[in-house]
C-alpha cells in the first residue's frame, strides 16, 4: 500500500523535498547537541526543561484528540465521520512519533534510553508514559493501516481489529492523563500541583488537537480535492467549541484558587506568566496574546453561521491551535520552573540549535503524516 505514497504531483514532491531539507537542518543541529551536550540549548540549572518538553506536552494532546472521531464513529455509529477517522488515526500516529522524538531529544544520555525498560520502575510516571505512548503509537498505526488495507481490497476489516479500536478510546484518555501526572505529582512546583491539570490537559487537547484535525482536512481538500465532508467538520467544530470553553473555564478556576486563597507559592507562577514578577515580564505578552486569541477564536465558533464558512472556521481553528500551543506548550512548562525552588527568577530563551532540532522533529512528523495521508487519500479515492 505504501507505494501509493510514491506517486504524486510536482507540488507533492516539492513539499516532501522541503520537509527533507528541514529534517537535515534538524539532524545537523542535533548532531551539535550530541557533541557539545545540552549546553547548546537555552535550558539551565534553574529551568531544566524547555522547548522540547513543551512540544512533547502539546503533541500528546494532538495525539489524544483522535479519540474525538474514533469514539463517535465506532461507538455511536456516526457515519458522518467515516472519511475523517483514518485522518485522525494517522495524525495520532505522527503526533505520538513526534512526542517520542522530543523526549529523546531532551535526554542527556539517549544512548541509555532502554534503561527505562531494563529497569522498570512503576513508581515513576515516566515509565508509564513511555508505555502508554508506545502502545498508542502501535494501536493507531495497526488499526488505521488494517482498516485502510481492507477498504482497498473492498472487504470488511478483520474481526480482530475491532477490540484494538475500542481499546484506543480509553488509551487516548490515558496518554494525556499520564502526561499530566508527570507534572501534577511533583511537590514544590505549584503551577503543576493541581488536580485539575489532567482534566485541563484533556480539554485543551480536544480543543487544539481537533482544531488541527479540521485544518488538516481543509488542507487535504484543497491540495487533493478529497473532501471529508462539511458536516463532519462542523460537528468537530462543536466539539472544539465546548472543549475550548471548558479549558478556559478551568484556567479561570486556577486563577480563583490561587488568588482568592492568597497563598504566595500558588500565586507566583501565575503572576509571573500573566503580570510579571519582580521585574521579569518575558512571557506576559505571550500569555495575554494566547488568552485573547483563544477567546476570540471561541467567539467566532460561537457566532451562529460563521463556522459554516471554511475561511472563518480555518481562522478560528488556527487561532485556537496557536493559543493552546502557547498556553500549554510554553506557559505551562516554563511557568512551572518560575520561581525556582529557592524562590529565584531566571528567564529562558531557546537557542537556534534548540529551535532547529524542534523544527526538524516537526518536519519528521509532517513527513510521516504526509506519506500516511497520501496513502489514505489514494485508497479512499481509488486512484
Amino acid at each position, binding site marked *: 500500500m505504501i507505494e501509493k505514497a510514491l506517486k504524486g504531483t510536482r507540488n507533492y514532491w516539492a513539499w516532501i523535498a522541503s520537509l527533507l531539507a528541514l529534517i537535515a537542518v534538524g539532524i545537523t543541529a542535533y548532531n551539535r547537541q550530541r557533541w557539545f551536550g545540552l549546553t547548546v540549548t537555552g535550558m*539551565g540549572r*534553574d529551568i*531544566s526543561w524547555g522547548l522540547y518538553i513543551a512540544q512533547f506536552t502539546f503533541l500528546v494532546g494532538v495525539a489524544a484528540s483522535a479519540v474525538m472521531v474514533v469514539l463517535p464513529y465506532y461507538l455511536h455509529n456516526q457515519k458522518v465521520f467515516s472519511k475523517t477517522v483514518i485522518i485522525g488515526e494517522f495524525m495520532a500516529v505522527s503526533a505520538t512519533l513526534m512526542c517520542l522524538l522530543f523526549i529523546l531529544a531532551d535526554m542527556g*544520555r539517549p544512548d541509555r534510553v532502554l534503561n527505562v525498560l531494563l*529497569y522498570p*520502575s512503576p513508581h515513576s510516571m515516566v515509565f508509564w508514559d513511555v508505555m502508554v505512548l508506545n502502545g498508542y503509537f502501535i494501536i493507531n498505526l495497526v488499526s488505521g493501516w488494517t482498516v485502510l488495507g481492507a477498504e482497498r481490497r473492498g472487504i470488511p476489516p478483520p474481526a480482530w481489529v475491532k477490540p484494538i479500536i475500542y481499546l484506543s478510546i480509553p488509551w487516548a484518555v490515558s496518554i494525556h492523563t499520564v502526561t499530566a501526572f508527570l507534572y501534577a505529582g511533583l511537590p514544590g512546583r505549584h503551577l503543576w500541583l493541581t488536580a485539575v491539570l489532567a482534566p485541563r490537559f484533556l480539554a485543551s487537547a480536544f480543543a487544539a488537537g481537533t482544531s488541527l484535525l479540521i485544518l488538516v482536512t481543509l488542507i487535504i481538500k484543497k491540495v487533493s480535492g478529497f473532501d471529508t465532508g462539511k458536516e463532519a467538520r462542523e460537528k468537530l467544530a462543536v466539539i472544539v467549541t465546548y472543549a475550548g470553553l471548558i479549558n478556559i473555564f478551568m484556567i479561570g478556576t486556577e486563577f480563583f484558587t490561587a488568588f482568592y486563597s492568597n497563598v504566595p507559592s500558588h500565586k507566583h507562577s501565575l503572576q509571573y506568566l500573566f503580570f510579571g514578577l519582580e521585574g521579569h515580564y518575558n512571557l506576559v505578552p505571550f500569555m495575554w496574546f494566547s488568552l485573547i486569541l483563544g477567546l476570540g477564536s471561541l467567539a467566532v465558533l460561537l457566532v451562529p453561521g460563521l463556522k459554516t464558512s471554511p475561511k472563518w472556521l480555518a481562522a478560528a481553528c488556527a487561532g485556537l491551535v496557536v493559543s493552546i500551543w502557547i498556553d500549554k506548550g510554553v506557559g505551562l512548562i516554563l511557568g512551572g520552573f518560575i520561581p525556582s525552588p529557592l524562590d529565584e527568577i531566571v528567564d529562558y530563551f531557546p537557542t537556534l540549535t534548540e529551535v532547529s532540532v524542534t523544527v526538524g522533529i516537526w518536519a519528521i512528523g509532517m513527513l510521516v503524516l504526509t506519506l500516511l495521508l497520501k496513502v489514505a487519500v489514494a485508497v479512499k479515492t481509488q486512484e
Partner: protein
Amino acid sequence: MNKERRDFIRKTGLGVLAGICASSGLIQAFALEETVLPAWDEKPVPGKIRWGMLIDTRKCRQDCKECVAMCHHVHNVPDFGNRKDEVKWIWKSSYEHVFPTSTQQFRTKEVLERPYLALCNHCAESPCTRACPTEATFKRWDGIVSMDYHRCIGCRFCMAACPYGSRSFNWRDPREGIKEASVDYPTRMTGVVEKCNFCSDRLVKGLMPACVESCPEKALTFGDLNDPRSDIRALLESNNTMQRKPELGTKPSVFYII
C-alpha cells in the same frame, strides 16, 4: 612502539588530567584508594542507619567558604563560571531563598542576613527517587539518596521533582570545568544529573563528610538519626531546629539551628 604510544597519549589528550594532577603537586600525595577492608564488610541492613546533618547557622561566618570549596574539590565538581551550566553540591544562600515558606516577618536583621547552607536533604520521603524512571537515583540502606551515574538517562525528572533545587545536570563535559582534579573520586560525564552524596565515598573509609571536616567553626554535625545516643540526636533534643519546607512531607535529614 613506545614513541607511538606516547604520541597516542598526547594526541588523545588523555594525559591532560594526569598533567594537571602532577603540576598541582598531587603526585606525591597520590595514592589510589588502598585495597583494604572497609569499615563495614557485610551487606548492610536497610533502614538501620539514617545519616543526617545539623547545621548551626549561628556559627556560620559570612566570608568563609571552606565547606563549599572542599566538597567541590574532593568530588570534582566543575565550575564553569556561569549560572546556566552551574553544577553545585553545597552552596551558601540567604534566608529567604533557603526557607522561602518560613516566617520572615519580624525576624531580626541578623537572622535574615546570615548565610545559610543549602545541600541535598537526603529526604526520608524523597520525591526525586519516586520520579526517576530507571532507579538511577535511589534511597540507600543508610538513608542516603544516592546517584548511580552509570544508569542515569538524563531525563531531569528528579530535578523537576526536587523541591529544594539540590540537583544539577551536566549540560556540558564536566572535565572542562575542573581546575584542580582530585584523584579520590571520579568525575561525571555529559548528560547525567548529580548532587551531594553525603560523602558516601568518605563514610566508607571511616571519614566524616568533607563539609563537616572542613568547617573551621565546627558548625556542622553529622551522625545517625536513628541512634538515640548520637551527638546529632543530643543536639536535636537540646535545640530548637528547623527543616526546609517541612510542609511538603519530604522529611529532610538536614536540620538547621537558627
